[in-house]
């Protein structure tokens, strides 16, 4: 008798376009925002893009220009209104070499040159940074040559030799966007079946169809089991949609440009599903039971919206304080899945036994919740709403 209830709930749900749309909005938002941000960052730090330096007054400093070109920079003649163009973001930067550059340089004084940039523009920062590095390198070389010419060791004026070893490359920043993927998948778990869970429980009571349903020769357990399976399916579907969305998004993203060796191939997709599907069953059972318990439709909405925050906790926790996955953590619903997915993403898939452990506890919890929900339906207070009866 579980099957007719399952079928009816699905049919009813599939006709509810608006709630299907709202249920899939969040799961799709993850991949879409990922695609947008990743593409944006990739366009900023694209490494194969040559450094282009528009120069005003290039004829004043032929050796500097030659140096820049030797180091791979493309030197262009700056347009007359280069300052305005930099301000408008049309140019990332410009180099201005005044007429007296050569005279000062010849005389062994500090020759003037200007880098024109707009430091408020994140987009141009890498280009400005690269240009500045090249110019500083040129300056160091020149000063070394001048000192050697006067018989002074260049090391004398460089008591400290600083080398930058920056581990937080822009590529890594972009790749970090992938770290929120498990969070979005978990949100999909808690939002995918939310509307159906409320409609099939508090909604069923509020529209007065629970009483006619319960006078049928069907056990209370079959009623909750049928509804639970329908909610679970809606939830798992949302996860799948999100996952496919991520796969399509990642396929469109210029990952190579970022030097990220990440792929969402079949094995990774299966790993994600193996983590999320058992959790979907648990989330569905929890949502259904809570919504039965709620006095009204509105109250159920409040409860289940708060439940959506649950996946945030482990994800935030791990982001702030990265922990190494341990076996016992697999037994904590949501936390276990978060860690499993993070490991899969990193390309270090945990052993199958961990997946089994992470599936075990949600399933046990689901069974307990189902039994509780069936018990709730034997209570007149739940069936007719609390305070009712007469």
């Amino acid at each position, binding site marked *: *008798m579980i099957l*007719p*209830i399952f*079928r*009816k709930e699905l*049919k*009813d749900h599939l*006709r*509810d376009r608006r709630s299907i749309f709202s249920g899939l909005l969040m799961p799709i938002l993850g991949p879409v925002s990922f695609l947008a941000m990743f593409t944006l960052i990739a366009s900023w730090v694209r490494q194969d893009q040559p450094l282009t330096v528009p120069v005003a007054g290039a004829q004043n400093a032929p050796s500097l220009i030659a140096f820049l070109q030797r180091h791979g920079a493309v030197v262009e003649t700056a347009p007359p209104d280069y300052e305005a163009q930099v301000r408008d973001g049309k140019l990332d930067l410009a180099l201005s070499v005044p007429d007296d550059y050569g005279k000062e340089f010849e005389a062994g004084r500090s020759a003037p040159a200007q880098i024109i940039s707009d430091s408020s523009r994140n987009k141009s920062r890498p280009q400005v940074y690269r240009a500045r590095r090249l110019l500083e390198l040129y300056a160091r070389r020149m000063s070394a040559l001048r000192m050697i010419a006067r018989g002074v060791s260049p090391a004398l004026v460089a008591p400290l030799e600083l080398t930058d070893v920056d581990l937080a490359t822009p590529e890594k920043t972009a790749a970090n966007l992938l770290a929120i993927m498990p969070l979005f998948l978990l949100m999909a778990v808690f939002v995918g079946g939310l509307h159906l869970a409320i409609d099939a429980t508090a909604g*069923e009571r509020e*529209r*007065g*169809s*629970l*009483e*006619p*349903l*319960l*006078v*049928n*020769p*069907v*056990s209370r357990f079959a009623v909750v089991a049928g509804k639970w399976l329908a909610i679970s399916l809606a939830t798992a579907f949302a996860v799948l949609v999100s996952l496919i969305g991520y796969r399509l998004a990642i396929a469109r993203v210029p990952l190579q440009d970022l030097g990220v060796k990440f792929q969402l191939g079949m094995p990774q997709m299966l790993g994600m599903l193996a983590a999320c599907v058992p959790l979907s069953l648990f989330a569905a059972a929890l949502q259904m039971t809570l919504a039965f318990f709620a006095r009204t439709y509105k109250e159920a909405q409040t409860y289940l919206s708060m439940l959506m925050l649950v996946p945030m906790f482990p994800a935030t926790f791990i982001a702030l304080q990265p922990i190494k996955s341990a076996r016992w953590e697999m037994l904590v619903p949501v936390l276990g899945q978060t860690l499993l997915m993070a490991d899969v993403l990193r390309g270090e898939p945990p052993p199958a036994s961990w997946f089994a452990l992470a599936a075990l506890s949600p399933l046990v919890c689901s069974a307990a919740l189902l039994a509780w929900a069936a018990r709730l339906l*034997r209570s*007149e207070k739940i*069936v*007719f709403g609390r305070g009712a*009866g*007469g």
Partner: protein
Amino acid sequence: MIEVRNLHKRFGSVIAVEDVSFCANDGVVTGLLGPNGAGKTTTLRMLTTLIAPDRGIALIDGLSVAEHPVEARRRIGVLPDARGLYPRLTAREHIQYAGELHGIPRKALESRTEELIDLLEMRTIADRRTDGFSHGERVKVALARALVHEPRNVMLDEPTNGLDVMSTRAVRELIRRLRDQGKCVLFSSHVMQEVSALCDRIVIIAHGRVLADGTPEEIRTRAGKENLEEAFVSVIGSDQGLLQ
């Protein structure tokens, strides 16, 4: 056959049903008559296994409802107080859902559905979603849903409440037809005229107790009144139930 013996139910400090016993036989229309809040709906809900009595026993065809709830529900067709429908399902789908829950095989269910659609004259609305149905149309769907498995015992909670004249006539006609088929029909109403028009036997309930039980004739004689209306007033001690 529907029987209750010494049913008792209280909700917190409110005693809904104090001590109700009666028996509704097959082939007879039995009316539970009483003012609002008399305990009619609570009694029906105890019979339909939705509420557990504090004391007493409810029997369907001699089967204890408390001990065999699923089997008892198999033998009853219920039009509950709440006629809730699913707005996104059609009238036909409502009937079929109930039929599936009763385990009726597909073929049989299809022909039974057609039969009910004709019987309740709902051909024009059968394949429309119930969202926006009139009150009468909703009651028809709920009735069809209750009767899909051809139950031997039919319980109707205020079946004509809020219906227009035409729908009321149709429901009365249906109730008589069920009786002629030998079913046990138990229906509750707070409207005296409704009960007197239909019932072979009347159980008058007020304040959770049975005050009178018998044929309309018997009730009149016992109260020593000319007509049923006055008998009713004298039995329950007020004219509350007469106000529609």
